[in-house]
């Protein structure tokens, strides 16, 4: 038993939590906790009924927001990384922006743009941009000076220097930034939809809460948990691969 526990601690602790959840729900019948099995059944129905297709618009908005975040993030982090004056001048602004509870900005976005996509896109940008810039600036600050100089003296064009020197050298940090931005972006788009209340996953959550459909509520929460954990794990694996390759070369 101990050996089993030592070999697979993570699946076992997950199984213990699910089993404890199921037992507690079946034995004590708390009004606020549906059994895990009921949630699993509802999760399956949610997938089969196609209601999760509502997430398509969520993902599209997220992608659009992230594109803006990456473009603006690249410009800002280059600005900060290449100019020491800008770096020092902007530091307190980024510091303050990181301390802001960004969710509080969403009602303002809703006032400005209502139910349009702009509200959700602005929320994604406000959640993801500053963390991304702070991370990418690390890569921009320590560009490999000697390698760049060598590339230049061998006649590499700026585009070639970017492609063959700057991007490979900064790849691990750049991917960490992407991971942070994606996680933040998911939080942003979900927050916006929940506060708007009538689109995407926010609409489904709202319905489940108002009709007191707890199995549905928990199934939706699980959906969001799975989606965000999976995107995190994918980007984490990508980061491991690139940082291994960079250190080996």
């Amino acid at each position, binding site marked *: 038993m101990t050996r089993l526990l030592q070999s697979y601690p*993570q699946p076992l602790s997950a199984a213990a939590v699910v089993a404890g959840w199921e037992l507690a729900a079946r034995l004590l019948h708390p009004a606020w906790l549906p059994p895990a099995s009921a949630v699993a059944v509802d999760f399956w129905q949610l997938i089969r009924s196609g209601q999760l297709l509502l997430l398509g618009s969520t993902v599209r908005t997220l992608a659009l927001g992230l594109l803006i975040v990456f473009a603006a993030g690249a410009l800002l982090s280059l600005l900060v990384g290449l100019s020491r004056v*800008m770096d020092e001048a*902007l530091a*307190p602004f980024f510091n303050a922006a*990181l301390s*802001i509870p960004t969710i*509080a*900005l969403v009602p303002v976005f809703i006032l400005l743009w209502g139910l349009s996509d702009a509200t959700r896109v602005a929320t994604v940008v406000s959640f993801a941009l500053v963390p991304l810039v702070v991370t990418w600036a690390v890569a921009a600050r320590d560009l490999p000076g000697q390698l760049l100089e060598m590339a230049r003296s061998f006649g590499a064009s700026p585009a070639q220097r970017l492609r063959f020197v700057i991007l490979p050298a900064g790849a691990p940090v750049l991917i960490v930034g992407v991971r942070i931005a994606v996680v933040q972006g998911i939080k942003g788009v979900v927050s916006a939809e929940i506060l708007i209340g009538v689109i995407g996953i926010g609409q489904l959550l709202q319905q489940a809460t108002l009709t007191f459909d707890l199995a549905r509520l928990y199934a939706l929460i699980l959906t969001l948990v799975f989606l965000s954990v999976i995107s995190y794990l994918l980007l984490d694996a990508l980061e491991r691969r690139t940082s291994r390759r960079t250190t080996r070369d």
Partner: protein
Amino acid sequence: MTERRRRAAVLAVRAAILAGLALAWEWLGRAGGGFFLPPLTLTLGHLAAMALNGTLGTALLTSNAALGIGLPVSILVGVPAGLLLGRRRLLDRAFSYWLDVALVIPMIAVVPAIIVALGLTLTARVAVVMLFALPVIALNARAAVRLIDVDLTEMARSFCARPLQVWTKIILPAALGPLFGGLRLGLARGISGMIVVELTLIPAGIGGLISGYRSRFAAADLYAATLTIVLEGVVLIAVVQLLEGRLARRLAGL
């Protein structure tokens, strides 16, 4: 560039950004008629009025009651839990990934489940603050205790230091930086949690004000209330950073 000229350039850029933001806000507000974006001066006027007639004070007190209970409890529970996870390998492998998951997911989606379980109460708001703040505090405490120099603790033990002495003389001083990092992040996330629950399901405090102003299209009041909560975040975290710097200097004997 000389140091003095660089310093002047930095200050000039900062002043230019602040002035540019303020002017843009004012101009956009005036040009657009002020229905969706009231001018900065009008917003500040409303902010002053709300501060003077007590609306803001009451709302801030109500909101921060949840933070004032939730954050200390998160520290009291999260730090020992994190220290334990950092020191016990098996527990760490079995349970720490739950904390990582808690940081990655959009916690706002869990709020309805909390409200269903605990009702529209202060307890529910405290629980949400803890959901937001506790994982990052525990993870930082875990990271802190892992940074400990094993050679040092071993030496202390071979010189017959008691376990308590090992903790107070070696482990805690080394762990201070990450612990404060956790406090800072936990505070930032805790403020988010405090406002999230008020914006979604329990219309109390400053979040309740924001929701109310939004549905009445009281734009200047909405911007003023939002500005208040933004400033609260910036100021509280600046205070923690200040304390951290003081404490670090004192420990370093300066």
